[in-house]
């Protein structure tokens, strides 16, 4: 209501008098004049006529008023728009074709822009997101290799004092289980240092974020999706409790949908104060991955230089690679690197589509212009200036483009979601496509731009008409000659652009088809991965499982239990060895290899059933047996790529290799007695995609997983029929022998539960 009043006030200041007021005043003058004329002796009807001839029509007066106070432009444009709309209604076929071709181009371009906006320009909801960086250490010898590092609470505080640093957030994740609800359910908890509220600056949907006062208190903040899933989006959830790992936590807040922290530790289902993260039984104090928010106007290079000495000092005690340098990565960087080119290419493609649409409209307008020459000639003849006619034609073009834009923006609302639906894991989880002010401004600009682009040429062309030639009587001559050249140019351009677009699309589709038909080297059908996490924060349980033998026995016990479930045919164990994108590179030494050389290969920690479960063929020799598997040492199997690259294929059997990096210095890791010692190659297996579906297969060494155990493991379960239908009975089977052992639920996490076919779709 107040808005309406404000608009009325604004309008009043622009045009103080209403049309009826102006008309009324004019009528009073007209009446007075008419009365005078009658007094002079004219008959009434004649006086009325003369008064109107001398002074003008009352109905025309408001328009004259607006013209006098400088609003005539609006009248004329309004008339142009009304006329344009009427003309479009008369030519429905023409209008439909023009609008549709534009709506397609504008819709696709707007969709791409909103995607780029959401993914690359403004993907994170955090305050000062462009200043948040992710510190990594880059290996000087292998610049591709980098690793995250953890800092203790005092080290985080020390980092905070550095000049270029605004604030530092520490976080770490842990698998928790909801313990009061039938089968144990795995959830991912992220512990955040208590400055989380100010660091993120994201307003919670309900309640509040973790604050300094929460230190030490059992409180929990929920992720949006977890809240939806677990609490059915109940807004009264604040103040209730959530039981995790047999302890009660008070729910203090729910984060909004756009908050999905984060892509390194995995998206948390719940967020907890860092002070609750217990030290591992008998282990060092808990440590945290840092996110560093820089002060405004500090460059990343300057911050790198300032922080590197501090990190060097902190990391002094740690062994490992000595030649490294620090790099602060803006959190958007990985996405820019992975998606930037693809999105730019897509934007280019849809821009082409838009230009084709514009060319199409130009041609249509020109073609229609032929039939309108007569009308335009009359307008010129009765005094319309060329500018006036150009304006009129441009307004008509803009009416088309604006209508096209409205349709296009409506369509883009769905189009923009498409890439996210097709490939959800390639985008930051925070990006949430919405039509916002920037996107709308972009499409309005696009509408004006395209309207002028396709309307200008026909407008200039048609307004150049010589009325004398176009008017009837002299129309017998040839009329169409002057425009023909431009027509051909437009049509040729349109056809060329269409061919270009089709060729690009064709190449892309062929690439995609090639990808889907690529031989994988293994059979993902009816296989799923099940991840388990051991409870490192539970002192009683952890001390029981800390030794290598006990942990291996525990894993084997669960494996056997899963294998006993009906319809399960094979169960294998792997540690981060799930294809098609398994594990990281390690260097190794092969007997008789050069001293300075540091060859690299994938080291796959698996058991002897792995090859059968994934149907990877054995080419030479044998796979290790059960005894060798539990010992972990002395044996290895390599893939075909390894034997051709580093060994001569015929003499691969019996050669020796060792993996110096298998030392077990990582937290929670235990290794076998001779884990870094010499291993004999007992077999060669076929190549299976191990570096992503679209990448060449890299050399791989398979060794018994008991050589280096982690606090987690994955089971690869081959079943008869859809593996997910067995999930419930498998869970029940696991709980029957280990009542608290949950399996990881998350589909997206590395250690989650998913079918291998899903993993391929994600990777493709």
């Amino acid at each position, binding site marked *: 209501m107040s808005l309406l009043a404000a608009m009325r006030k604004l309008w009043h200041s622009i045009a*103080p008098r209403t049309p009826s007021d*102006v008309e*009324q*005043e*004019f009528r*009073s*003058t007209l*009446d*007075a*004049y008419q*009365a005078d004329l009658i007094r002079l002796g004219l008959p009434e009807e004649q006086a009325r006529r003369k008064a109107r001839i*001398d*002074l*003008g029509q009352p109905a025309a*007066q408001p328009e*004259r*008023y607006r*013209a*006098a*106070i*400088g609003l005539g432009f609006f009248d004329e444009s309004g008339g142009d728009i009304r006329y344009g709309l009427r003309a479009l209604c008369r030519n429905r076929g023409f209008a439909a074709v023009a609008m549709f071709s534009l709506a397609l181009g504008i819709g696709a371009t707007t969709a791409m822009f909103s995607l780029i906006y959401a993914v690359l320009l403004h993907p994170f909801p955090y305050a000062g997101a462009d200043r948040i960086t992710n510190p990594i250490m880059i290996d000087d010898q292998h610049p591709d290799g980098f690793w995250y590092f953890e800092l203790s609470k005092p080290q985080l505080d020390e980092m905070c004092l550095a000049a270029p640093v605004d604030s530092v957030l520490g976080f770490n994740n842990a698998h928790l289980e909801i313990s009061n609800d039938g089968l144990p359910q795995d959830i991912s908890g992220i512990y955040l240092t208590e400055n989380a509220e100010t660091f993120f600056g994201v307003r919670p949907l309900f309640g509040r974020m973790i604050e300094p006062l929460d230190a030490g208190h059992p409180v929990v903040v929920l992720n949006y999706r977890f809240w939806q899933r677990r609490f059915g989006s109940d807004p009264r959830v604040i103040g209730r409790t959530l039981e995790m790992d047999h302890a009660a936590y008070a729910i203090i807040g729910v984060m909004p949908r756009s908050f999905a922290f984060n892509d390194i530790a995995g998206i948390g289902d719940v967020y907890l104060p860092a002070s609750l993260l217990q030290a591992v039984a008998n282990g060092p104090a808990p440590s945290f991955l840092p996110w560093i928010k820089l002060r405004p106007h500090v460059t990343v290079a300057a911050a790198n230089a300032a922080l590197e000495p501090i990190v060097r000092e902190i990391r002094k005690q740690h062994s490992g690679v000595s030649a490294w340098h620090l790099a602060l990565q803006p959190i958007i960087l990985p996405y820019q690197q992975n998606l930037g080119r693809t999105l730019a290419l897509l934007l280019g493609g849809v821009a082409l589509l838009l230009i084709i649409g514009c060319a199409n409209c130009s041609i249509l307008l020109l073609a229609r212009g032929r039939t309108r020459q007569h009308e335009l000639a009359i307008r010129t003849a009765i005094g319309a200036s060329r500018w006036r006619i150009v304006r009129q034609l441009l307004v008509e073009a803009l009416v088309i483009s604006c209508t096209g834009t409205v349709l296009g923006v409506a369509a883009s609302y769905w189009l923009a979601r498409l890439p996210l639906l097709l490939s959800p894991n390639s985008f930051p989880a925070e990006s949430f496509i919405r039509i916002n002010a920037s996107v709308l401004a972009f499409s309005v600009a696009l509408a004006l731009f395209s309207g002028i682009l396709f309307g200008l040429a026909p407008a200039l062309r048609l307004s150049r008409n010589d009325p004398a030639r176009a008017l009837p009587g002299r129309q017998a001559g040839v009329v169409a000659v002057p425009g023909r050249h431009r027509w051909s140019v437009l049509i040729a351009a349109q056809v060329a652009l269409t061919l270009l677009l089709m060729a690009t699309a064709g190449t892309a589709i062929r690439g995609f088809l090639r990808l889907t038909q690529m031989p994988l080297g293994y059979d993902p059908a009816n296989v799923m991965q099940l991840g388990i996490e051991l409870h490192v924060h539970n002192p009683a349980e952890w001390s029981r499982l800390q030794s290598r033998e006990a942990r291996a026995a525990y894993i084997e016990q669960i494996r056997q239990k899963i294998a006993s479930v009906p319809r399960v045919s094979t169960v294998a164990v792997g540690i981060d060895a799930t294809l098609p994108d398994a594990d990281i590179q390690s260097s190794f030494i092969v007997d008789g290899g050069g001293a300075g050389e540091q060859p690299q290969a994938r080291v796959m920690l698996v058991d002897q059933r792995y090859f059968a479960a994934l149907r990877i063929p054995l080419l030479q020799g044998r796979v290790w047996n059960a005894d060798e598997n539990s010992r972990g040492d002395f044996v290895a199997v390599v893939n075909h790529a390894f034997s051709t690259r580093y060994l001569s294929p015929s003499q691969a059997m019996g050669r020796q290799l060792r993996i110096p990096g298998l030392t077990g210095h990582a937290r929670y890791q235990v290794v076998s007695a001779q884990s870094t010692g010499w291993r004999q190659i007992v077999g060669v297996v076929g190549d299976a995609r191990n570096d992503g579906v679209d990448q060449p297969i890299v050399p791989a060494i398979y060794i018994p997983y008991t050589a280096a155990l982690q606090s987690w493991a994955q089971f690869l379960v081959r079943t008869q029929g859809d593996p997910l239908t067995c999930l419930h009975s498998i869970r029940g089977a696991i709980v029957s022998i280990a009542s608290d052992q949950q399996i990881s639920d998350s589909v997206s996490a590395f250690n989650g539960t998913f079918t291998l076919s899903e993993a391929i779709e994600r990777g493709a």
Partner: protein
Amino acid sequence: MTKPVELPQGTLEMLILKAVSLGQLHGYGILLRIQQISGERLEILQGSFYTAIYRLERRGWIKGEWGESENNRRARFYSLTAAGTRQLKAETAKWIDMAAVVAGILNKKTDER
């Protein structure tokens, strides 16, 4: 009736200001007043007359108010505002000045010939 005179551009507005300065008038009254002062010699293009009034009101030099005319009809009466008074004064001075200069030049030429 003497020979009609065509108004130079912009002078109509000055004449309206002058007419209104002599007392509150409605639109038709202004028209009559101008014709009366000029001895019926000025032919005002009807279209431009109201355009000029709208423009003067927009600039705040005259102010219109609804009232009763002499024969009990409703009419809009215009009066000069303070800004209008100043404007009329300035315009008058400028016009007389210019007319004197132009007349001086023209007269001189006639003398010399």
